[in-house]
């Protein structure tokens, strides 16, 4: 089974996690720029962070056989600090870098005028640089926030197929689907979504334009939630091809619109080494003979 985690903050994770991700079949991932937990107070703090996403973190991932990509943006939370906003002038030069596959995370945290401004400007950047946009939905006021997000996306003129709206759940999935945007789901140990609810959403809305991620960061989270969701899908009767679509081909298609995905195996790590899907699934024989 090959897995692409479309949203995971590896900077906050250990090398044990990298080893476990590789062992679980994760061969590529996207690390969106977000906040650090501790608020930043100046532009230089962002610059070092962006540079580390494209430098040290990519190198670190490659040591474990994983292709690391990034999205770059001023995140909604810190868009509210006037000391941080000037980083918007630095972002364009990052959008032409290798392996920068989207503008993100952008969107809303508290739905302030400052967030409006940063969101609109960065959607404009996504259009200008022909990059997808990776949009975070607020933890509080999620439904109202998602509605407003979709309005801003529509007004910006960006093609909805170039946008993923992330951290969705049962309450807002339908409006995002109707808008023609990609639907992102973060599978968490106890907040956001879990594997069983995810399977139910897939059963209800299908596997198209769905991205499943672990969104693992410095909080309580689990980088292997992509694998456990894949296993839950198989248990529920989805085919290996369905799993491959959701956990690999969908993120490849979405971020591939950037022209910046690099998916060749890392030298020294064999492409043929992917763990056997059937063997990985607790002896269940559902996959036997099915896997292409």
């Amino acid at each position, binding site marked *: 089974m090959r897995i692409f985690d479309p949203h995971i903050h590896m900077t906050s994770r250990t090398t044990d996690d990298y080893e476990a991700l590789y062992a679980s079949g994760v061969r590529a991932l996207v690390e969106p720029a977000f906040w650090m937990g501790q608020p930043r107070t100046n532009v230089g703090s962002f610059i070092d962070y962006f*540079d580390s996403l*494209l*430098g*040290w973190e*990519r*190198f670190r991932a490659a040591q474990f056989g994983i292709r690391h990509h990034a999205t770059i943006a001023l995140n909604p939370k810190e868009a509210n600090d006037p000391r941080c906003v000037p980083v918007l002038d630095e972002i364009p*030069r990052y959008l*032409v*870098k*290798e*392996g920068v596959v989207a503008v993100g995370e952008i969107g809303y945290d508290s739905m302030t005028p400052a967030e409006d401004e940063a969101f609109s400007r960065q959607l404009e950047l996504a259009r200008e640089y022909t990059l997808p946009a990776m949009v975070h939905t607020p933890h509080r006021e999620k439904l109202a926030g998602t509605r407003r997000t979709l309005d801003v996306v529509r007004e910006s003129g960006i093609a909805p197929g170039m946008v993923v709206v992330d951290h969705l759940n049962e309450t807002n999935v339908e409006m995002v689907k109707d808008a023609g945007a990609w639907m992102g789901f973060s599978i968490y140990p106890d907040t956001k979504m879990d594997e069983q609810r995810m399977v139910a959403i897939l059963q209800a809305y299908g596997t198209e334009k769905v991205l499943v991620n672990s969104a693992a960061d410095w909080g309580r989270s689990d980088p292997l939630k992509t694998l456990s969701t894949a296993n839950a899908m198989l248990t529920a009767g989805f085919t290996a091809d369905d799993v491959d679509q959701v956990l690999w081909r969908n993120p490849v298609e979405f971020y591939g619109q950037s*022209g910046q995905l*690099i998916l060749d195996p890392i*030298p*020294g790590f064999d492409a043929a080494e992917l763990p056997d899907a059937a063997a990985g699934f607790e002896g269940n024989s559902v996959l036997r003979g099915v896997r292409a």
Partner: protein
Amino acid sequence: MTTTAPAMPFSLGYGTNGFTDHPLPVALELLAEQGYGAVALTLGHPHLDPFAEDLDDQLSWLRARLDELGFRIVIETGTRFLLDPRHKHRPALVDEEADIRLAFLRRAVDIAAVLQAECVSFFSGILPADTSPQTGWQRLISRVADIVDYARERNVVVAVEPEPGMLVQTVADVLRLRAELGNPDNLRVTVDIGHCVVVEPGGVRGALLEAGPLLANVQLDDMPAHAHEHLPFGQGAVDLPLALATLAELDYRGVAAVELPRHSHDAPGLAVRSIMALRAGWEASGPARELDRWLQESTTAVAADSGALAKIFATAGRRLGRGPLWPDTDPAGVLFGTTSDHGRGLLIARLPDILPADELAEALLALYDGGDSSERRGVLRGLGALAAASPKLPAAVVTAGLRLTTEALRTNESGLVAAATGPFAAAYLDQHSWRHAVLKLVFLGISLSAVADLAERSDDELARMAADFATERRAAGRPVPADVQLLLASSPRTSTSS
């Protein structure tokens, strides 16, 4: 492909040693007919006797004829029995007595000065049976120094040609010779692409890249990998399209002449077939020349607007690919970089023609500071290319380069550390920092083949550091990297304590 290939940046020529059954005027006429634009003239029988009484008259006729034909010329000196009718190529520069060889080479320099030839090419010679390599090398050093001085006073470039079986048989040998002579500007390199498949560890491409900006003369031929036997194109192991693409990539603008000294019996036919093979090879080298196109476009764009550099640099991987430059010896592209690292480095090596030194230094800092890891490796490779191309870089460039090199050496990213130990570090990094850089490579498990001038700069203190490191590893019951032995086993030249 139906697109017309751009013109070769170098001039195709033919060696007169492949036309020994034709008088020189006739040979020149035939070559011009076939579309050649240069001639590699071997002095001596039968075309031009360098000691002839009427030499001046012959030379003025020849210079006029070259002008009429629009021909360029290089002087070759590999005449077999000119100096000793009984022994091929003797006396050689490595022999005990070589006065007539030196007199001949000085005469060749005189002739080149009169003809405004691009260079005088010569080889080292086969070591006599009773002579040690050390003795031969010392003889060679002092004699080449004489020739280089003599040529410099006459504004003539001399180029040493590595020959299989001779004391100097690879480009690396020539570079070592050059380094020991203090890197004189008018001492360059001749590469025969056929020889490369026999003796060069990096093959044709590796040898040409190693010669890089020092390449002053190229001989074209095919050759089997197991024997020094000049063959018509298509009959040996030379990848001609790759060789031509590599010359284009280096922006080589000199003469590249067919070298078939044993085929005079069929010279007119071979001249035709050779140029057809070269044109076909050039067409076939299209994809490999993508790098060359990118360099041309990029330098033009930067010359028009230096602000274009940042984006060109950032997006290089999309045009040039990101695979290892040497997949066989360096599959991860750590030691010698990736194709885009290499391309970025070559672009930087061209910037001195476009930007004044201060702006170049500023550009290097901006590209590095604003770059991701691959761009930073490109800047470091570029510094290496600049240092390799010029004996003395402007102070502003050196200052910038040292800041970036030390910064890269502080990282733990293997590709950056390896790229920071190239020719720039070899030329400019202080001894303490340089030793730590080398030890860091060992510590990170990176082969020391990444290091430029390892033997030249190794010293007692580095050997001591390597020994301590090995002791520490053994104490921990951990394996000692094989390259530590390389440092311990090296015979240090100096024992500086700086």
